[in-house]
């Protein structure tokens, strides 16, 4: 996942679109027949075309650019993500853009297990990219999807994932307009990796960015922390625990749009994915050379997540989120922003968690419920169970 502050760049519109490529499979000479067949069968058949057998698996040939590659596209990806632009099957998706700045982001998803409580890798790959656009102030317009499949993956699972991706894209109102598929030898992948690239438009006049964070800003968290990471850790097995923790995997563009509609002067936003809020806050504080002070007791944590972290000796502040964001607004707007967040289903547990200060530039300080303070450090890597 990309945690670089410059995730959303604003490249020259034309060249951006020019460099987009369609799936390799679209260029193969013998593709002509299959799509025709599909077309004669009528569009409606795309919704329920199970032309492969129940136990058929991804083979190296599926990535070879031949007939099987085409079948993958026609029988699995196209029906799942059907839209007019994809249907054109061009090498690059040509998009009409209204005036404004194009935002573009890309992210790879390698989560294990592929299905987890609250989501799956395909859904995550859509939401994650949408969120990167949304927290950059952009309205998402389209995404691409590149799939790396491991030889042996069940096609039925692939179909399910493709459908999840299509459903997620439709839910957020963006189209998956181009894609690619590669197959790697068995043992060289983890079943399935997905890379999504998203573009969005930043409307003229919208000014959101790290450079706007200033001393006196309030820091808000849009909801509970650590849900995604702990759900994955519990679902991954290896740990002898079972819990009802569900990933918070969700698209944030609507929630963010509601802030914009309410006229909140948003200074900056960040979705604290891998590394949790400890990592995101440290990155931001360091980038803007200001200090952050966080009231620890204000940071929302679901009781189950707290228990699981407690039990495993893991700091919930370092655990990944996939449907939350940190929001920086002028202090005077913080209460109003909080109300807007809390009025949306995805922001119900939102809270004002801290403020930006001139002191200790680059350092995040946690205020404990005891009135003491500690330095919130950048997590070193994977959250690991400890013994002492």
């Amino acid at each position, binding site marked *: 996942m990309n945690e670089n502050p410059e995730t959303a760049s604003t490249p020259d519109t034309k060249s951006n679109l020019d460099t987009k490529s369609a799936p390799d499979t679209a260029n193969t000479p013998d593709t002509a027949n299959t799509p025709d067949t599909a077309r004669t069968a009528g569009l409606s058949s795309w919704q329920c075309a199970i032309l492969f057998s129940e136990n058929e698996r991804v083979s190296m040939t599926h990535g070879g650019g031949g007939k099987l590659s085409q079948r993958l596209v026609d029988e699995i990806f196209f029906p799942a993500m059907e839209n007019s632009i994809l249907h054109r099957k061009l090498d690059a998706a040509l998009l009409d853009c209204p005036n404004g700045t194009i935002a573009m982001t890309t992210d790879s998803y390698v989560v294990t297990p592929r299905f987890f409580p609250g989501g799956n890798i395909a859904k995550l790959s859509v939401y994650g990219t949408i969120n990167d656009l949304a927290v950059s102030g952009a309205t998402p317009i389209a995404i691409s999807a590149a799939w790396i499949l491991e030889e042996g993956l069940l096609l039925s699972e692939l179909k399910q994932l493709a459908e999840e991706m299509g459903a997620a894209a439709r839910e957020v109102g963006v189209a998956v307009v181009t894609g690619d598929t590669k197959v790697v030898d068995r043992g060289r992948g983890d079943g399935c990796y997905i890379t999504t690239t998203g573009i969005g438009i930043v409307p003229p006049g919208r000014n959101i960015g790290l450079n706007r964070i200033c001393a006196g800003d309030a820091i808000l968290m849009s909801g509970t922390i650590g849900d995604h990471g702990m759900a994955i850790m519990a679902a991954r097995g290896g740990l002898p*625990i079972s*819990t009802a923790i569900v990933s918070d995997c969700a698209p944030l563009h609507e929630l963010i749009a509601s802030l914009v509609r309410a006229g909140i002067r948003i200074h900056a936003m960040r979705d604290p994915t891998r590394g949790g809020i400890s990592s995101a806050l440290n990155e931001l504080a360091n980038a803007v050379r200001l200090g952050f002070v966080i009231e620890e007791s204000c940071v929302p944590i679901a*009781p189950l997540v707290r228990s*699981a972290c*407690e039990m495993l000796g893991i700091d919930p502040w370092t655990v990944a989120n996939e449907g939350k964001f940190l929001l920086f607004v002028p202090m005077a707007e913080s209460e109003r922003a909080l109300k807007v967040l809390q009025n949306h289903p995805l922001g119900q547990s939102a809270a004002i968690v801290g403020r930006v200060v001139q002191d200790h530039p680059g350092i995040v300080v946690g205020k404990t419920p005891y009135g003491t303070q500690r330095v919130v450090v950048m997590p070193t890597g994977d959250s690991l169970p400890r013994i002492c």
Partner: protein
Amino acid sequence: MGLADFGGVVAEVCLEYLPDIHVGDYAIVHVGFAISRIDEDVALRTLAHFRELEILKADVAEQIPSVDGH
């Protein structure tokens, strides 16, 4: 082996070292092993003792009048 509930998170825990433990007891668990049963009576007494400290503090701070009206 037994199941331990950590505030809603259920984990398989080795109970070999607490032969007298019963369902409903609280225990300290370390690397998957229950090593000590928490004595609830003592826990309650300790907390009551702490609350006394708190009341003492409040007494000093607020000069609460005694109950019998003196």
